[in-house]
């Protein structure tokens, strides 16, 4: 994927990764003790497996941009950030970093519980590479930002987790780094402080810093970042405009979900083995073109095709459906009798289709129940409870409504 969509002419690249790989040698079995290791070594049984945490990464990040990293857990995002922070060295390839890197430390990392807030600030500052003198200049600002007041001279074991988070954030962001690494730590403290920390990051950014941002919250990636990279199994799958990368990533996530939904639908199980007059043989969720689909958008056409196999003649068959939202809300229960369809079945195969011209449902996951009923005597012949699923997803379809569970398709008019 080409690195595009940012006017590169106005910026210099500040981080360069050239064909970077990181390999871990993992023992095939966990060898925890020295004794065990020695025995294995003597037996020549210490086998290692090479695990590629990152594999041939090429990436340039430009000065002043906010760059996001997305991907599943274990995809290699954090490993990549650690390379930039000098914590890890690459097994292969080259990393160039121009400027001072400040990682946003995990809350309270390196804080000692018995020491006061003041003492911990100096210690933490030293870990970030600042001398005592430099910290003396920063100290009043840090106290002010963290809103700790007199608590700064109390041992930090007496602090609440919110206070710790504020102090940690204040120390880490007081300096104006060239590159700030933010690894999912923005969700600390109360809402007011979250807002404040967001503003602090914005101001660091406005002063020309480059920010590397990792999050599982796609909305934060989209609002914070200009560009993003999607990392999967140690490789960059996609890099470019943040919105586009997020779209591709979510598309893939939904594709995988679709595969699961389809697999589930074809598992085939029967709650009604005993009454062997008729059985549901297949249920398909189809789109306008009569091909199977499991993710729809509001307003799309959906067809539910139910096939059955009869073993005896049935005079008055009723095919019924129920659609539930995943949390159990019953939305609708159409059946062939309501529609005036009279079905007489002879032994053999048959089927019906229920067409919904324009789905009124809003985003969510929905389950379908199918039932075959003999209207004479009101006897349930076969029944599959919430066995089929589909998702409504409006991303990319510009459907504006999002409150509640359905659209009534109404129109507004100015009087």
């Amino acid at each position, binding site marked *: 994927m080409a690195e595009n969509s940012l006017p590169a002419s106005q910026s210099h690249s*500040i981080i360069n990764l050239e064909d970077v790989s990181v390999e871990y040698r993992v023992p095939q079995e966990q060898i925890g003790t*020295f004794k065990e*290791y020695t025995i294995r070594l003597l037996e020549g049984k210490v086998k290692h497996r090479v695990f590629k945490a990152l594999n041939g990464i090429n990436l340039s990040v430009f000065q002043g941009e906010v760059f996001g990293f997305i991907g599943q857990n274990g995809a290699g995002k954090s490993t990549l950030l650690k390379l930039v922070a*000098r914590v890890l060295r690459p097994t292969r390839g080259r990393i160039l970093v121009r400027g001072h890197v400040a990682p946003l*430390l995990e809350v309270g990392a390196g804080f000692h519980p018995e020491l006061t807030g003041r003492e911990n600030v100096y210690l933490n500052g030293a870990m970030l590479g600042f001398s005592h003198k430099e910290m003396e200049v920063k100290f009043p600002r840090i106290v002010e930002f963290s809103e700790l007041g007199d608590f700064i001279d109390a*041992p930090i074991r007496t602090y609440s987790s919110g206070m710790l988070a504020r102090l940690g954030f204040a120390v880490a962001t007081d300096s104006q780094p060239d590159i700030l690494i933010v690894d999912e730590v923005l969700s600390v403290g109360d809402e007011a402080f979250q807002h404040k920390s967001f503003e602090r990051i914005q101001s660091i950014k406005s002063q020309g810093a480059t920010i590397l941002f990792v999050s599982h919250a796609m909305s934060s990636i989209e609002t914070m970042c200009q560009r993003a990279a999607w990392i999967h199994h140690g490789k960059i799958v996609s890099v470019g405009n943040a919105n586009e990368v997020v779209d591709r990533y979510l598309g893939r996530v939904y594709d995988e979900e679709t595969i699961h939904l389809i697999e589930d639908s074809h598992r085939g199980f029967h709650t009604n083995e005993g009454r062997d007059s008729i059985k549901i043989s297949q249920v398909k969720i189809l789109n306008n073109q009569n091909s199977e689909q499991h993710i729809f958008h509001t307003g799309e056409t959906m067809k539910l095709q139910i096939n059955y196999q009869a073993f005896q003649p049935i005079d008055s068959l009723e095919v019924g459906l129920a659609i539930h939202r995943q949390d159990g809300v019953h939305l609708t229960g159409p059946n062939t009798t309501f529609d005036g369809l009279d079905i007489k079945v002879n032994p053999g195969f048959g089927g019906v289709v229920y067409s919904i011209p324009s789905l009124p449902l809003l985003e969510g996951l929905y389950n379908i129940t199918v039932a075959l009923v003999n209207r004479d005597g009101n006897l349930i012949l076969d029944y599959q409870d919430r066995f089929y699923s589909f998702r409504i997803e409006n991303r990319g379809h510009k459907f504006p409504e999002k409150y509640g569970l359905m659209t009534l398709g109404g129109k507004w008019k100015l009087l």
Partner: protein
Amino acid sequence: MKVQPALPVIYDSTRRGSAVIEELREVLNYHHLIWQLVRRDILARYKRSFLGVAWTMLNPLGMMLVWTIAFSQFFKSSSLPSYPAYVLSGLLAWTFFSQTTTASMVNLIWGGGLLNRIYIPRASFALAAQGTGLVNLSLSLIPLLVVMLITGLPIHFSFIFIPVSVLVICAFALGVGLLISTWAVYFPDISEMYQIILVAWMFLTPIMYPEQILPEAYRVYITMLNPMYHMVKLFRIPTYYGRFPTLEEFLIPFMIALVTLILGWVVFARKSDEFAYRI
């Protein structure tokens, strides 16, 4: 603010000299951190208990008392004019060694979470442990002086040699500390094992007994081949014995310490890039 045309390259993963030299350079860059770590250790100790730093002095004194009561009759010898001072001087050197080596290892393992998040020179922990040990040792010289005065040993001019002795022991302890820290990163049970080794090692070193009581047949193994024998002796000479060491008495421990330190530093620095994967 930072709108310079292009920032200079400050980190290039391929441009790198020997890991051994680089670790040394970074440790010098981060001397503030090492100082802060020492401060943290001492402040934390001071805060945790009512008597605080006084324990640094009371602890070896208590140990000395116990051993004196238990063994002074047993090891009575004309060559030991003041058994309490003999035990205490040996104990100070030994405690310094055992505490700093253990702390190097423990600090690296427990403080290691930091290594995963931020770059700090990995040897900082071992160096800070030495710093803390030096502060503790300096404080415990006070009870040693008191005990020597009470038991009637003269305070000799040779006391000024103590810093040299201590530096040699410190170099040895740092070397050992770095070596066992490296192993402990790979095998967590090393730290348990080391505690047992320390006990055995202490009993094999003439600390509470005079070396003369050792059977002639084993004496050479227990003394000459035991580096801590030379270290303890180097500390006792200017304090308990009240004289300056001979050239040989100085050069043997000095060479042992130098070789151990270089070996420890090289092994540690070469392996330290892997630590972040392991801890």
